[in-house]
């Protein structure tokens, strides 16, 4: 049994963990829940040896344990699979799996035969349709996530920590993963499962630990908790009755603000036509890798369009780049914060003003007073938890980083907002806040294209939903109601070809 007691960790001004407690028993799957910034990832990193704690003690079977590096953690049987990939893009699948593995012959050479069979076995177990010698950089995000778990299991750990590994998986892969995890649990593995998806937690886990603001709020069996209880322990407040704002669709007469005709992007997007009207939120859904990501980026201009046209406010755009798009009022927010969002080492203030200042003349000065007051207003409006404007953006938690990117784009004068899974890895509380912000903006005339991997969320926020399958829109739902989820799920799997309800 692994026990962590009185764990505290501070990052500069921000307290990430404040005397948190956590335990893992053999043969048990424990869920670790909490809103963003409640310290879930931090505790995982401490156990995995990536981050050192300020105070507290960790014991395994009563014996005190000092973890100074990832190597220490692994030798003590604690393995981690991370939410942000820890795979090396330039190496092959096989090399990644066995990066630190003693499968060598007497002379110290790699035992290729054994390694090949092991790799094939693992790939088959995870139902991954890739070859052992493909480079990891050519894999899908979902395959990478599974590979991440496989890599952690290669070490034959006693304690396995999974940090948001299901965020990029689609449904069938989640089921495969759960089968494997239950199988390992039966063999005596102890698993800590960190996720924002409640249905998965209820399906998989036996016990639950809930963090709030770096403290352990609740820790017990899962089966006597309800959804509302969990939200209560996470946020400290009961969930309000579902806010389903009245949907107004009277702007269609005004004509579309964005009109996309027969758009093609390489071989990933084929022949997509869409109209976007002011004040509406258009949901886009689809399984991983069905072309929606490329489509959104093409509309923003960060991906090259091979065919078709985009008309903005009735004017055809001949050349599209992110700079031109932002200047004319089209902004883009990506859920992939690390590579398409924040500058982790720069301050919150700079992160917020980067787009705004980039759009002005290169030598024009920054009006500090004005910018600061605007930024402060944004921080208040979006409820961003910071330790101060001059702190680096990396000091914020994932959800707050995402809100920071929202703030950056809202400081501009935009009329179309493109969102690519903006709530990936964001907790339910911040999710609600983001949705509310979007709703308010839409009421003021902002048009949004919103992609999310979570179709419940889409159903809650969208006025219309377009379903992507194999690079094109196969179905459009103009009337979004609560019963839509099953229809969406069917359409996402390509159940029926084009028909507009």
């Amino acid at each position, binding site marked *: 049994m692994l026990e962590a007691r009185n764990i505290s960790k501070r990052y500069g001004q921000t307290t990430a963990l404040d005397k948190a407690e956590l335990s893992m028993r053999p043969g048990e799957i424990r869920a670790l829940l909490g809103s963003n910034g409640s310290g879930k990832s931090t505790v995982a990193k401490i156990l995995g040896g990536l981050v050192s704690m300020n105070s507290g003690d960790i014991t395994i079977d009563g014996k005190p344990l000092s973890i100074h590096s990832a190597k220490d953690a692994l030798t003590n049987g604690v393995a981690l699979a991370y939410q942000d990939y820890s795979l090396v893009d330039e*190496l092959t699948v096989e090399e990644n799996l066995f990066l*630190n593995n003693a499968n060598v012959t007497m002379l110290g050479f790699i035992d290729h035969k054994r390694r090949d069979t092991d790799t094939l076995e693992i790939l088959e177990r995870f139902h991954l349709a890739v070859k052992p010698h493909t480079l990891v950089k050519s894999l899908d995000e979902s395959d990478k996530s599974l590979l991440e778990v496989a890599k952690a299991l290669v070490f034959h750990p006693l304690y396995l920590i999974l940090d948001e590994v299901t965020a990029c998986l689609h449904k069938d892969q989640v089921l495969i993963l759960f089968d494997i995890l239950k199988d390992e649990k039966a063999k005596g593995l102890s698993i800590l499962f960190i996720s924002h998806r409640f249905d998965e937690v209820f399906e998989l886990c036996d016990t639950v630990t809930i963090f709030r603001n770096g403290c352990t709020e609740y820790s017990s069996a899962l089966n006597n908790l309800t959804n509302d209880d969990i939200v209560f322990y996470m946020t400290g407040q009961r969930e309000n009755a579902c806010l389903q704002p009245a949907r107004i669709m009277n702007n269609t007469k005004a004509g579309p603000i964005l009109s996309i005709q027969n758009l093609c992007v390489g071989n*990933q997007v084929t022949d997509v036509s869409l109209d976007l009207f002011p004040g509406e939120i258009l949901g886009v859904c689809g399984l991983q890798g069905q072309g929606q990501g490329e489509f959104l980026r093409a509309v923003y201009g960060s991906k090259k369009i091979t065919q078709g046209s985009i008309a903005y406010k009735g004017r055809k755009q001949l050349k599209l780049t992110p700079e031109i798009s932002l200047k004319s009022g089209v902004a883009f927010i990506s859920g992939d914060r690390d590579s398409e969002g924040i500058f982790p080492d720069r301050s919150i203030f700079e992160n917020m003003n980067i787009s705004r200042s980039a759009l002005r003349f290169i030598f024009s000065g920054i009006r500090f007073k004005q910018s600061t007051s605007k930024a402060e207003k944004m921080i208040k409006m979006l409820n961003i938890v910071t330790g101060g404007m001059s702190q680096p953006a990396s000091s914020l938690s994932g959800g707050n980083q995402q809100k920071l990117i929202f703030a950056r784009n809202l400081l501009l004068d935009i009329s179309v907002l493109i969102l690519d899974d903006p709530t990936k890895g964001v907790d339910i509380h911040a999710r609600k806040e983001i949705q509310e912000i979007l709703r308010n903006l839409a009421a003021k005339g902002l048009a949004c294209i919103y992609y999310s991997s979570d179709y419940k969320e889409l159903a809650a926020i969208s006025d219309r939903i377009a379903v992507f399958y194999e690079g094109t829109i196969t179905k459009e739902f103009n009337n979004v109601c609560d019963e839509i989820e099953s229809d969406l799920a069917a359409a996402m799997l390509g159940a029926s070809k084009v028909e507009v309800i």
Partner: protein
Amino acid sequence: MNKRIRSFVHKIRNSPAFGPYIMLFILTAINLVLQGKNFANVSSINSLFLVNTPLILATIAQAVIIFSGGIDLSIGATLSVVNATAIVLGTVMPIPLAWACAFLAAVLLGAVKGSIVAYLRVPAILVTFALSFVLEGVALLILPQPGGTIPSSIYSVYGGVFAAVIPISALVIICVLIFCEILNKRPLGAQMKAAGSNPRSLYIAGVNVQKTKMKAYIAAGAITGIAGLCLTILASSGDPKIGNALSLNTIAASILGGVSLSGGWGTAGGAASGALFLGVLNNLIFYIFNNVIKSSTIAGIKLSYLQQLLTNIIIILGLCSSLLAHLKKNNSRKGHKNINENK
């Protein structure tokens, strides 16, 4: 069998060294067409390898460091130190012992560079840039002015030909390439590349990143030592500034050889062929200027003055094409995402 050939072709095509091999092949073909028998005979091939072996070996050493995420601007100065040490010690002790000391000096220097970069975490480009001046000074301290000599027997062995066709110097290169392949066939090979492209994941996998980088620098130091000794034989004397200019050439040759400066991507064979490309190019340009253009002038400019200019323009074109090929490969790989896999 057919399947095996196909998979071999596939492997070559996807190798980082595919572009460089093609470039080298084309250049050699041009050379063959222009020079004919003057190029394709044992003695001219031998002298081509003889002259270029130090650069090729130093490039392999550079590539090993670049794989692991570093860079070494002091390789040239290290060559000078090896040369000076070998010549000076050769006057006071038996030649084999003196040369072993010179070789060990290079290994030690590799360890010094590695420990500063890995353990003190100073950016490699700064460390090695500063060290290059220190080492240039050290070489001058050891051997204040050019001079000294080596036994002619060593040169005649090194300049000889094995089995009537293979130059001995090429054999040295092959030995070093085999050494690199041995590293590659051990877990260390993948770990070194991981240290270059994503050190965090290597750390997470429980491997000591500092140690891995250190090993890369030591291996590179050993290869540099051999390169320095080859340079000494080639010059047959000592010169404290002999290698100083080579540092940047090794970096250019590495890039020509398909090695990515951002680390983790490339092969030792590719790096060697990149360096050989420079050698064959020099050979070709030299031939053209001496036999075709000679001393003709255009608009009062003596054309032979343009030799360096032309050589380096071709090198720039080569660099652009290999960088472009790298970019294109990355893009096409992203585009290869198979949509059907998600069915």
